[in-house]
């Protein structure tokens, strides 16, 4: 079976870690600077007053004048999410994170480890931690497991057997399906309010009106096969932090600080000579907010000067003075050095460059970012049956 663990409003919970008192009061994630003034996730107290995620700021303040706006804290959220994933991995779950707050894993191996499906799900929830109010769901399909986790109560594990999948999904709201915001409204105008009602429509008609995303949602609503779990490769925990005695906004000081972090990070023995491929600079800003930028290097390098040159321009994007600066290695290259040949074999240089380019794309966009075309039935009269796009994670 496939299991999903969901932490609702994870981004808001992470941002409230430093202000736990707000968890029981009406609060919402503030709109992002430079974007539409729409609210992010909201607390239960805010929801009770009619405030909804995605609502316009003006409208929400008119409904709930004492609504507290919380700044986004992407660095804390990312760090907390990584800690949760590591705890799950330490407990034996091979996880595939979907987005912060949602993770999948196969239960086949861990069922035997913990003596059954339910004890395994309980163990997963314990690994997540009670403060996060996680919920678990298990089913034969990814979407059904996700839907089960979404409707479960905090700390509950809901299991849906294969023969009950369609009956279970039928009364659930459409918002569980991965569709664009305006599509929900479009479907509601047509009188389609539940997953069961969508599943009852003819597939061709849904595809014609809603396009490929709608066709996929229809297929999910019918409980059709939606892929297996592809566990991530656990990341290397390598970072160095510099805490300033007072907030620093001066470019020269920040660059010097970064230089120190680069030297310290390159001296870490865990690196075992492997050069960093992808690195991230993180800062804790005055006022409690955080800032983070990642850089994928064109060629993995352990040369401090090259790393400084690649990272230093990012510091100019800091929106406020920093109290803390951290440098993290997101990914290390596999090789420890490059042996140059006197005469390279024909085509080897190009192949090597291509391989390196693909690794760089993969590091930048994540697993599944590079695919190969595999001909499966080139003779077929049906065009889409001739070839497949297969993700390459090697």
């Amino acid at each position, binding site marked *: 079976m496939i299991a999903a663990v969901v932490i*609702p*409003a*994870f*981004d*808001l*919970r992470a941002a409230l870690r430093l202000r736990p008192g707000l968890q029981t009061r009406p609060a919402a*994630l503030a709109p992002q600077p430079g974007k539409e003034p729409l*609210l*992010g*996730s*909201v*607390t*239960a107290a805010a*929801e009770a007053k009619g405030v*909804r*995620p*995605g609502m316009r700021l003006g409208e929400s303040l008119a409904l709930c004048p004492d609504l507290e706006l919380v700044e986004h804290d992407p660095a804390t959220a990312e760090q907390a999410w990584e800690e949760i994933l590591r705890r799950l991995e330490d407990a034996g779950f091979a996880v595939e994170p*979907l*987005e912060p*707050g*949602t993770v999948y894993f196969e239960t086949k191996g861990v069922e035997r480890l913990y003596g059954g499906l339910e004890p395994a799900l309980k163990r997963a929830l314990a690994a997540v931690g009670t403060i996060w*109010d996680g919920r678990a769901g298990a089913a034969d399909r*990814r979407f059904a497991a996700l839907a089960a986790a979404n409707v479960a109560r905090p700390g509950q594990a809901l299991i849906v057997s294969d023969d009950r999948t369609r009956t279970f999904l039928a009364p659930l709201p459409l*918002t569980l399906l*991965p569709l664009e*915001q305006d599509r929900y409204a479009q479907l509601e105008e047509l009188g389609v309010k539940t997953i069961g009602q969508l599943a009852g429509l*003819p*597939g*061709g*008609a849904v*595809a*014609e009106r809603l*396009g*490929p995303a709608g*066709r996929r949602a229809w297929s999910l609503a019918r409980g059709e096969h*939606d*892929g*297996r779990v*592809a566990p991530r490769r656990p990341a290397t925990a390598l970072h160095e932090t510099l805490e300033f005695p007072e907030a620093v906004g001066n470019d020269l000081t920040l660059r010097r600080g970064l230089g120190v972090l680069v030297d310290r990070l390159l001296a870490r023995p865990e690196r075992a000579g492997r050069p960093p491929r992808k690195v991230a600079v993180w800062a804790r800003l005055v006022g409690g907010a955080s800032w983070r930028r990642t850089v994928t290097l064109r060629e993995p390098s352990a040369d401090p000067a090259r790393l400084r040159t690649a990272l230093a321009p990012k510091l100019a994007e800091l929106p406020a003075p920093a109290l803390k600066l951290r440098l993290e290695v997101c990914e290390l290259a596999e090789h420890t050095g490059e042996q140059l040949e006197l005469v390279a074999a024909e085509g080897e240089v190009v192949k090597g460059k291509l391989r390196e380019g693909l690794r760089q794309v993969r590091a930048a966009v994540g*697993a*599944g970012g590079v695919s190969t*075309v*595999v001909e499966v039935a080139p003779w*077929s*009269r*049906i*065009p*889409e*049956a*001739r*070839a*497949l*796009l*297969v*993700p390459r*994670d090697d």
Partner: protein
Amino acid sequence: MVTHPGSARAARTARRLNAPRPALVEAQASGIPRRVNRQSVALVREEWRVVDRWWTEEPVARRYFDVVLETGENAVVYRDDESGSWFTQRA
């Protein structure tokens, strides 16, 4: 707490290349396309039928048209006889 409905990442599984995409087609009574995606059809270059997998639970019965639009663009569209819907695809 209520989560902001974010975008779910696409599954990392193999997917079909050249999958058909829904098209907006107005056809004449004879079934020949008159407008494709709100553009008039200037010429129908070729027409053919694909009938396959009739022995399975997912039979394929399509009527393909290779057309030239008024903008000079080439397009291949087909009507799925099962659902009655129109799709565009590189043939």
